[in-house]
């Protein structure tokens, strides 16, 4: 039997080779993911002890970092969720005109600003306020400044997810309510919002998960601290910041602790993401 290596056979082999190559690409991408998850789990688990979770960073633990992250995302959520959702409502309900288009454009632009630039902005903002004498100059490294930075990141993100959530509600639902003579604001409040509430909550939770992992803006606003939370006008610690500090520290013990902190951080972010998905499922079960 002669082996015909003619053009057709060559094309078929090439076809198979390209399919394998494409699959290989997927493998190459998954490799680092697997490695990160593996290393974080193994090395992180080794570092986590009860004292690790209860001592502040000054004593080698991450208790104050966890507290700091919770404080920061709590305050940021308090500020950013209402503003973001309201912006999303505006865009979805009233934003079909030119002004709406412009606002949407700016929201999109702001989601793409590098987070470190946002950090610089928050710092500079407070700095200029300090120079103008309105606030104390010390405030540049404080919880408030950090919250300003994180909110600036979170608001456009939540605005976008909220707009998408609101768009899920069909026009006919809105029209049906309006046709019953209910005023516009009530339609939004009582009909539209509740029907996409779970999607809104999901968007909000995802936004929180995202800012929980931000480090760069915190370097220049929160400053990090070896102790627990002392005040809104004081520097504050946070998990991602702590991971960074421990990682670049010359002390090996600190390096090991960095893995523990990163594991806690990833678990926290994962938890929030899972919670956001559970919200959707809860809602659909209730129906």
């Amino acid at each position, binding site marked *: 039997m002669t082996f015909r290596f003619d*053009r*057709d056979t060559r*094309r*078929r082999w090439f076809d198979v080779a390209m399919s394998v190559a494409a699959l290989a690409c997927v493998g190459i991408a998954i490799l680092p993911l697997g490695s990160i998850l593996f290393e974080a789990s193994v090395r992180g688990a080794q570092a986590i002890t009860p004292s690790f979770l209860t001592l502040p960073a000054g004593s080698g633990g991450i208790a104050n970092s966890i507290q700091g992250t919770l404080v920061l995302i709590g305050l940021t959520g308090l500020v950013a969720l209402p503003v973001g959702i309201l912006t999303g409502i505006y865009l979805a309900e009233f934003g079909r005109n030119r002004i709406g288009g412009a606002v949407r454009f700016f929201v999109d632009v702001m989601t793409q600003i590098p987070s470190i630039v946002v950090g610089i902005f928050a710092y500079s903002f407070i700095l200029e306020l300090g120079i103008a004498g309105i606030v104390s100059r010390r405030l540049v490294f404080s919880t408030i400044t950090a919250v300003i930075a994180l909110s600036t990141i979170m608001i456009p993100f939540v605005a976008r997810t909220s707009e998408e959530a609101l768009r899920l509600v069909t026009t006919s639902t809105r029209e049906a309510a309006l046709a019953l003579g209910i005023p516009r604001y009530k339609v939004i409040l009582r009909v539209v919002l509740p029907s996409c509430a779970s999607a809104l909550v999901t968007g909000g939770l995802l936004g929180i998960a995202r800012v929980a992992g931000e480090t760069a803006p915190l370097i220049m606003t929160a400053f990090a601290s070896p102790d627990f939370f002392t005040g809104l006008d004081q520097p504050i610690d946070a998990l991602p910041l702590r991971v960074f500090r421990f990682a670049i520290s010359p002390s090996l013990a600190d390096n090991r602790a960095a893995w523990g902190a990163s594991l806690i951080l990833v678990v926290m972010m994962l938890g929030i993401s899972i919670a956001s998905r559970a919200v959707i499922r809860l809602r659909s079960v209730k129906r």
Partner: protein
Amino acid sequence: MTILAAKIRVEKLSAWYGSKLAIEDINLELEEHAVSGIIGPSGCGKSTLIRCLNRMHETIPKARVEGKVHLDQDDIYELPAVSVRRRIGMVFQKPNPFPTMSIYDNVAAGLRLNGERDRDRLDAAVLASLKQAALWDEVKDSLDKSGASLSGGQQQRLCIARALAVKPEVVLMDEPCSALDPIATAKIEDLIFDLKKDYTVVIVTHNMQQAARVAETTAFMYLGHVIEVGVTRELFERPKETLTESYITGRFG
């Protein structure tokens, strides 16, 4: 009926979309160098049948085929699909030229796939195909314009030229004129008439008059079965089956 040999012989062909049976136990002979038409109401399976003839049906996920289709001596289901499709070309319902390629490149696409690089041979092939598709005069000065810049009727003729360029033995046409206006339709029907010198043509159409105009033999399908096959004129004037007669006289479909 068989003065000429059967170019395509369909034997006990059935095809499914997932679990849904679309055509069942089809047996058909299609003459060489002739135009065969397939007519029937929507959903009768004529498109499915023609797509089985160049193994396009199986590209749909979860599609399945059973039976044999003989092209001359070979069962196309035992040959590599790629070579089958080179010998049996297809023109689709909605013109689908490659919009990122020029008219020239569209026609030459199939040839280049088969490794043809020689510029002179490509030029000659493009010229010949565009002439056979009755498009040459209209585009000869703008061969490098985008394939998508033509009108609907011209695009379809471009697709015909593209299919002809690889010199298939059979040309399948799946309702080629249904998206076109009457003038464009007429131009294509004229060129179909010329094609049968060199090719075997199978045309699916929902337009009975079109079948009457271009096809020598016509098959009538209904609900996945071939009800009747015959010389076109006889099928239309003296149908043997009552179903055929009902369709022809417009009682349904």
